[in-house]
Every structure is written in C-alpha cells, then in structure tokens.
C-alpha cells in the first residue's frame, strides 16, 4: 500500500514561491493498494492531481468533513461527470440534514455551475463510527475532535495500516493527553498504525490564541503519535502562512528537542509514502 499526498495545505490554498515544496493545494491523499485499487481521502484542491480513473472502475472518495478546504476540489474530479464511472462519496452523517443536502450547498449555483443531483453516477454513503470494506481495503471511521462534525479514518490493506486525521485537536481541554489513551480522541484509529497522516497546523505559540479551532501543533501530534505507537508520522494540513523554510525549521526543532520513537516525514506535496 502507498499513500500519495496530493494536497497538504490546511484551511486555504497558498501557492507561491515560499510554498513550493510543501505545496499550496488543500487536503487530498491518494491511497493505492498493491493490486492497484485506489481510495481518495478528502477532496481539497489537491484532488485534481489524482491518478486518472481506470475505465469503469468505481471511484471512492472518503471525506473527513465538509469544510471547504476538504471538498473544494470535488467538482473538479473528472470521474464525477463520466456516466460510465460510479463515484462513491463517503462522508459524516448528520442528525439533521442528509449528506446530499449538505454537499449540495457547495455543488450548486451560484457557488458551482452544476447541481449535485445532475451528476450522472454518484452514490453517497453517510457514515459515523463504523467498519466497512472497499475492495481490498478495510476501513474504520470514527468521530474525532474538530470544530463541527469530523471523521478520521483507519485504512488497512496488504497487511499494512494507515490512519488519516487531517483536522484534529486531541489536546482540546486535556491536561493528560499523553497518559490517558482511552480518553484521547483518535487513539482507536491511530493505535499501532504503520503510517499516521495527522494535522500539524500550528506552532506552539500560534496554538495559544487558537484553542478550540480544531487543530494541533506539531508537538501535540508528536505526543499523540508516540502514545499511539505509530511507525511513521506524516506532517499534514500545514498552516497557510507557514513557508517551506518555517516548516523545515519546526521539524528540525522537534527532532532536536526529542528522541522520537517514529520516523517523522515532512509531508511534502506530491510525496509518495510506502506504507
């Protein structure tokens, strides 16, 4: 299994000379099983870099939540407009409005020229905390702490496992993040995975004024990854104002400060990670 980071930026795209290596596109990851089956995790602007769909093979997009930086690329996924390709979109269920209605707020005029209902072969799946299979992939979804309702995913295939928690604030209101795994949001998804792709949006200083905004610092995430016993931690959902230089510095500082029990992977745009 491999994971390719199609879009790594959080909140809003930020293309420019200062973000060339870590990238300017928003959240999207392509996961490919050894037999070639593909899953797309989130549909930020990075989804335009997804591999072309195999003829007639269904396309599966797993949305963590419906903030714009995670769905804004959806309307630009070519498979959506091909009547010969089934596109399955999996997203968080709500007690009040169906997924179609919530996605339709964006995929309809005046924000988008095409109505969701006019897409030719779209199948929606509303999910909460559950286990399901897609081809060779075993998937677990669970609600995690973020502003609004958000899911994290654990994806297993070929004897390997990956957890994807791009927007996550497990430290919210907690003084014991490290010592109480069963009371830590996302722990069940991340425990023992080979690769954890996780929110590392803020510096410690930035977090002080952004508590409750639904994101983590690199140090929070390092604590979480250590507690979960992951093999690799991939930095993800970079703060729009963070330059390549600053993200490199944050990573170097963490490595200098701590003896990390996992491989810290920088989360570069377009990088492919062997799970």
């Amino acid at each position, binding site marked *: 299994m491999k994971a390719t980071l199609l879009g790594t930026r959080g909140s809003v795209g930020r293309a420019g000379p200062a973000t060339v290596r870590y990238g300017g596109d928003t959240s999207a990851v392509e996961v490919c099983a050894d037999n070639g089956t593909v899953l797309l995790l989130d549909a930020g602007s990075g989804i335009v870099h997804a591999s072309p769909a195999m003829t007639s093979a269904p396309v599966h997009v797993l949305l963590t939540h419906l903030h714009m930086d995670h769905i804004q690329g959806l309307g630009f996924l070519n498979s959506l407009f091909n009547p010969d390709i089934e596109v399955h979109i999996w997203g968080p269920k709500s007690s009040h409005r169906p997924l179609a209605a919530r996605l339709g707020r964006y995929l309809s005029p005046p924000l988008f020229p095409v109505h969701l209902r006019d897409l030719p072969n779209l199948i929606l799946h509303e999910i909460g905390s559950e286990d399901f299979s897609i081809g060779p992939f075993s998937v677990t979804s669970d609600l995690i702490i973020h502003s609004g309702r958000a899911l994290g995913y654990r994806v297993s295939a070929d004897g390997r496992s990956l957890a994807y928690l791009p927007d996550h604030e497990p430290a919210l*209101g907690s003084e014991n993040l490290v010592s109480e*795994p069963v009371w830590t*949001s996302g722990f069940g998804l991340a425990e023992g995975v080979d690769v954890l792709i996780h929110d590392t949006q803020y510096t410690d200083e930035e977090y002080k004024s952004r508590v409750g905004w639904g994101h983590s610092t690199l140090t929070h995430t390092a604590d979480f990854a250590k507690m979960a016993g992951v093999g690799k931690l991939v930095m993800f959902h970079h703060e729009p104002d963070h330059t390549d230089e600053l993200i490199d510095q944050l990573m170097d500082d963490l490595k200098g400060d701590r003896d990390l029990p996992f491989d810290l992977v920088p989360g570069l745009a377009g990088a492919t990670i062997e799970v």
Partner: protein
Amino acid sequence: MATQHPIELILARRLAESMSHPVWITDALGNLVFYNEPAEGILGVRFGEAGEMPASALAERFVTEDLDGTEMPASDLPLVIALRDWLPAHRPMRIRSFDGVWRVIGVTAIPLVGVGDRRVGALATFWELKD
C-alpha cells in the same frame, strides 16, 4: 490496551473537567467512567482513588433514599431513568457516599446520544441541597 471511549464521552469529560459544579459520567451500561473534582466533595473520595466502577458495584458503594427516608429503588434514580428511557430526569434525594456521610442532593441526569442515535452514556450534575 483498553478500548478508546466514544468521542461524545471524551468531550463530556473535557466539559466536566472545566466545570465548577459536580458532574458524573457513565457509559451506556451505567458503568461509572468519570466524575470531576467538584463532585469529589460530595462523593467523599477523589476520582483518582475510586477509579472507574462497574454499575454492579455502584449499588454497594452508594445508598440512596427519598427525602422522607424511605428506600429508593434503583429504577427511580435519575441516571437509571436517563439510561433506560433516554430522556432527562431529575429528583432530590438523600445519598450516603463513599465516606459514609449522608447528604441531601438534587440530581439532574441527561442521556448522551450521538449522531445516528448512538447511545453512549449519560451525564449527571448534582448539588448539595441546604435547608
């Protein structure tokens, strides 16, 4: 490794930890999973010492009575109602806590029901009633 609690219970605990009034949280089976620091004053022991407790053990540790001193069946307890009927419940009562002291308290319990009617537990807040 024990199983992670549902996110609704985790958030309830985060809220309870930041409250200045007593809060008690159970899982869907009625097992005690947490009470906060203000609750320790009424219950008579720190949560760190008492720890999580199965529902079956709670009846042995607490004695409850109506205000007139008559025995109160467990089925009338607000938390039991919240978990049985998945509706809020309230009543005043007398309670003998971990420390053996009788106190008169008011209890309001609310069920914790997540998205998709996921029933994860209940939360009770309580306070000592003065004359």
